[in-house]
């Protein structure tokens, strides 16, 4: 059984508890243990970097240092946590002065980060670590006929880490195909959901959410799949506000990719945290495995 140093991040404690539950359930089926990082603290989201860059790196480094002690790979389900941790590790490896300053501060908590931690986003564990063939072999109820909009969002792909394709990646589509679903192609899959602008620049963010929902609906999505709690909240919980502001009539469920994998693995919806949605799920989706009548015929 492979273990990971699991960093749930603040959202998964409550707001996105269904992401946490479905991550634990589905990785369990794949022989993986997500071992919660001892006494983890906030990654700083996008707010710290607007206040103090060094503080932002230090708080990420505290978590990386705790993970380093375990000797396990670090895994974050939230795209923003992942991006922060990944780049703090990169900067500290490259910049000895920065690392020295941060480690001086970490001494106060008897911690030290030497840079020897691999930081992964949760979806990488499924796609690259476990692999699609293995996932396919665990599917008992393929999501046949379910049209899913793979929503990558921003921070799992951007900024670019190496030379990977950040414009048209395909791994999310491949993952959805592996569980029998039909990934749709829609132009805004890499577009931003607005993130924390939903609070600080509401009009702008609601308009961004509207465009995304429209794009997914135009592609006839039954459900949008996300990899980030912030994206999920913006796209789902603010749908009603979008409808009120723009006179639209959106009603698209937005699930975590782990919840869809869970359904395909035959795990009960309740164990996957379903029932906490703002937008009701179609019974056909919950009865995954049975073809969705709306789309079963060409």
């Amino acid at each position, binding site marked *: 059984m492979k273990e990971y140093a699991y960093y749930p991040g603040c959202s998964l404690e409550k707001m996105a508890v269904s992401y946490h539950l479905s991550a634990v359930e589905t990785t369990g089926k794949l022989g993986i243990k997500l071992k919660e990082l001892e006494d983890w603290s906030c990654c700083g989201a996008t707010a710290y970097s607007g*206040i103090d860059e060094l503080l932002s790196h230090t708080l990420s480094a505290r978590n990386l240092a705790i993970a380093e002690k375990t000797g396990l790979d670090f895994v974050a389900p939230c795209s923003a946590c992942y991006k922060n941790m990944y780049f703090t590790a990169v900067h500290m490896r490259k910049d000895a002065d920065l690392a020295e300053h941060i480690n001086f*501060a970490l001494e106060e908590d008897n911690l030290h980060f030497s840079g020897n931690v691999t930081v992964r986003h949760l979806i990488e564990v499924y796609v690259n670590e476990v692999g699609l063939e293995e996932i396919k072999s665990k599917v008992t109820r393929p999501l046949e006929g379910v049209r899913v909009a793979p929503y990558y969002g921003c921070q799992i792909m951007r900024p670019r880490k190496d030379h990977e394709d950040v414009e048209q990646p395909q791994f999310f589509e491949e993952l959805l195909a592996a569980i029998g679903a039909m990934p749709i192609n829609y132009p805004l899959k890499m577009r931003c959901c607005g993130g924390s602008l939903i609070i600080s620049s509401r009009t702008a963010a609601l308009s961004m959410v509207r465009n995304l929902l429209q794009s997914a609906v135009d592609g006839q999505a039954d459900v949008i799949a996300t990899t980030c709690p912030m994206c999920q909240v913006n796209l789902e919980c603010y749908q009603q506000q979008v409808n009120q502001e723009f006179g639209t009539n959106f009603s698209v469920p937005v699930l975590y990719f782990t919840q869809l994998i869970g359904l395909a693995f035959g795990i009960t919806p309740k164990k996957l945290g379903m029932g906490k949605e703002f937008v009701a799920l179609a019974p056909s989706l919950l009865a995954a495995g049975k073809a969705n009548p709306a789309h079963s015929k060409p």
Partner: protein
Amino acid sequence: MTETITFRQEVLNLLHASEGNPINFCIQCGTCSGTCPVAGFMDHSPRQIIAMINAGMKEEVMNSNTFWYCASCYHCTVRCPQEINITGLMYAMKRYSIWKGKYKEGLIGPTFSEAFVKMIVRTGRSFEPVLAPSYIFSFNMRGFLQEVQNATELMLKGRLPLLPARIKRLEKFRSVIGRIIPMGGLE
């Protein structure tokens, strides 16, 4: 004799430690503005704000909402043909404006970011309900009511924490922070 540093130089210095090329590499191609999903809501597009910084238009830049409207999606950054870290620049401008205490009136971003950091320094983890007062009173009545409705629904669905989570080694955590920035301003 004291040497005065230009606004442009100040901004270049802010970016000294970050990735990417300095902003005087900008060729004004507009790829950033064409890519930015928020550009339509900004006082000045990313391309314009870079030109304005390079032209030394400090007052106009500081009074612009542009960097506080940056969602940090890095779309401009991955596309910039001159490899300027434009998102990094937006963060740097946010810090500069907080540091100088100078930003466009009516923006929620600066107070929200400060409230967020203070919250983390107090408990080590995020707890959404304490953040609400930093922004909700800036909303118009309709936005206010919609936000209250959303919060109520989240609570009913069991998605809103009622008690703040606290990390165990909070005192040590705060000592770590104390070695980075003076705590006085954050209490």
